[in-house]
């Protein structure tokens, strides 16, 4: 049945070469943990992507209940966590995944660094990876405010104060991030917009570039 559906679509759209091109290629021996167990360090990039997918999915579901508004944000998070079935799990995935993604991305960066994989011709992918890192930190920072509890509020205040200490343009950055004179209603609205629209959009574009370059250039050789 499934096979018939697949073949019906494939007959018209010719999707087999597409996924073959994406998924069906050889994994070199030196990155395959089945050959050398120590090659598990090559898994960190894929694991980062796996967690990123979970973040996107759990985030989409959380917005079914969450309201980005200073009067209701905390109450809606409290409601979705304690009153909605599996709310604690879905929010837990997003909460712990946010930290995990940073950890895994850091390990991935270390692997790339210590295997020298960033060298010519892959410097551009290193730069894209660094930009991705920055976007991920931005996602973490903007998401932190959204529950609108004490931790969220003061962490954001501190983060914005740090940004405000940049010479010359600090105040401009502060005003842009706050959307007003204080961390308040306008801040949570724009942090929400950044968190669910702008930054994920940039993230997906960067990830696409990252993966296309890997396929173009191949995995770097053994040490």
């Amino acid at each position, binding site marked *: 049945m499934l096979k018939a559906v697949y073949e019906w679509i494939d007959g018209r759209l010719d999707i087999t070469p597409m996924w073959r091109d994406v998924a069906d290629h050889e994994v070199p021996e030196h990155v395959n943990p089945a050959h050398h167990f120590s090659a598990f360090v090559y898994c960190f990039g894929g694991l980062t992507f796996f967690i990123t997918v*979970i973040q996107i*999915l*759990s985030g989409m*579901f959380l917005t*079914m*209940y969450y309201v980005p508004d200073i009067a*209701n944000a905390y*109450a*809606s998070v*409290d*409601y*979705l966590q304690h009153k*909605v*079935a*599996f*709310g604690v*799990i*879905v929010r837990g*995935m997003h909460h712990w995944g946010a930290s995990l993604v940073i950890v895994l991305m850091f390990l991935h960066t270390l692997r790339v660094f210590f295997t020298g994989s960033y060298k010519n011709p892959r410097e551009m992918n290193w730069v894209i990876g660094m930009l991705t890192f920055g976007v991920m930190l931005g996602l973490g920072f903007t998401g932190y405010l959204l529950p609108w509890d004490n931790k969220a509020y003061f962490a954001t205040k501190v983060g914005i104060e740090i940004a405000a200490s940049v010479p010359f343009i600090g105040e401009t950055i502060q005003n842009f991030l706050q959307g007003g004179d204080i961390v308040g209603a306008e801040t949570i609205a724009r942090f929400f917009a950044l968190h669910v629209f702008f930054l994920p959009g940039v993230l997906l574009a960067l990830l696409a570039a990252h993966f296309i370059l890997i396929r173009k250039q191949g995995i770097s050789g053994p040490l």
Partner: protein
Amino acid sequence: MAREHEEQPMHPHAPRRQMTRRQFLSYTLGAAGAFMAGGVIIPMIRFAIDPLLKPKAVVPFVKVAELSQISSQPVSYSFQTLQIDGWIEKNVEQTAWIAKSSAGELFALSPVCKHLGCTIDWNSNPQHPNEFFCPCHAARYTPEGKNLAIAPAPLDEYEVKIENGFVYLGGIRPNTIAT
């Protein structure tokens, strides 16, 4: 990836078709992948459909009117009920048209038109005296709420409880008075 026809049987006399190593591995991989994807997706689906599976809230009875005031002429009474709307709880004003039927039975009708949900009024159309009338598309109802025109069903009624000379109203249910 069905390869069963490509492999040559190792023992020509053994007709038993065995699973190839590749098949076994791809099934195992598929099952493991499905297990992991399910572990991620199922909680999210359950989370999303929670409103469908929540039990309906029981509506408490509210004191609305004095029994001695009710006649055969419908009169609208307003009362407050607590509405729990997710994380927002607020008192909302409700209206009921309360009267006694020809058999002397007390009933309270919901003012929500059964056509498309506008609010009906009593005796508001001079051409149709002593009827409920809806201004949106001219639905009409008898005093007991029976639908005369436009609307596909009679007006809903409130559950009624009478205690110590007072009328208490509860949840809304389909009309049981109009015949």
